[in-house]
């Protein structure tokens, strides 16, 4: 009975670890996979292999994968609107053109090996800029959308062209915040 549960969960965990899009979750799945696998080695009377699998699978492999994942940066996006009077989730924008817009940005981040983390908040833009933890702030006023991006962030440069071309009906305006870069005079 226990063996059957563990064998089925082993297949499910392997599939989830391969198919999950967020790689941090895949590391968790792989950790549980190796633990369950190690118990099955023990069940089939191979305790030597079980010890090696438990040590390497839970300790060393986790560190190696997480270190490799450090190159996979988190990209913080804030979605702010006065219509959000309380703590809300993404059901507010479901089914509208705005949802397509947000999904497009998320897909864009996935293609750049960035991991988008979306926060919905009613806070005004100035406070969000002052916290300094958001790379991209989207402000919605009725049908108008304003995108605020850092001046030094090169991802926003690439995003600008894409959004203006595809979402003309949303009246998109892009503004950059951050320190003004001084133009260096190039002396030839």
């Amino acid at each position, binding site marked *: 009975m226990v063996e059957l549960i563990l064998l089925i969960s082993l297949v499910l965990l392997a599939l989830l670890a391969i198919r999950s899009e967020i790689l941090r979750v895949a590391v968790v799945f792989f950790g549980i996979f190796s633990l369950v696998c190690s118990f099955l080695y023990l069940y089939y009377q191979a*305790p*030597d292999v*079980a*010890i*090696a699998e438990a*040590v*390497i699978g839970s*300790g*060393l492999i986790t*560190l*190696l994968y997480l*270190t*490799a994942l*450090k190159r996979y940066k988190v990209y913080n996006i804030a979605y702010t609107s006065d219509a959000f009077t309380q703590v809300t989730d993404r059901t507010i924008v479901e089914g509208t053109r705005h949802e397509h817009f947000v999904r497009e940005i998320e897909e864009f981040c996935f293609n750049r090996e960035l991991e988008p983390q979306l926060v919905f908040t009613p806070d005004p833009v100035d406070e969000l800029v002052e916290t300094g933890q958001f790379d991209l702030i989207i402000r919605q006023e009725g049908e108008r959308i304003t995108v605020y991006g850092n001046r030094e962030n090169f991802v926003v440069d690439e995003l600008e062209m894409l959004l203006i071309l595809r979402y003309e009906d949303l009246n998109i305006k892009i503004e950059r915040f951050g320190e003004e870069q001084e133009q260096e005079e190039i002396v030839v």
Partner: protein
Amino acid sequence: MKIDISGTRSEIVSIMTGVLYPFIIVFAVYIILNGHNTPGGGFQGGAILATLFLARFIVLPENDLDVHWSHNLEKMLFAVILLVPGVFVFAGLQYHFAALREPYLIFMNIVIGLKVAFGLTIVVFRFGFYEGR
């Protein structure tokens, strides 16, 4: 190297790792020394010894550890692994000295355990410390 207290260090993790430290050492030594009687042996005990350095890496992620000496030590231990069985097993010394069979197993387990521990420590520190910042 100066210690950065303002970083991401957590007091609970530090104290818990300090409590776990001697247990990990004792358990790894037990696995290595008892490898010929109970499951375990050189490789498993060495991997547990390497997780000792992993635990230290959790507590002090900013601090470097000089692991250069372990490179040469690992190569020397490989020479020992090559020489001792060459004399004892391949040259047939075990058929003349039956009393040395068990000490030979214990010695080889210790040598293999140290070699694996040094090797995996190098892997952990190269990857976790140098490559990941």
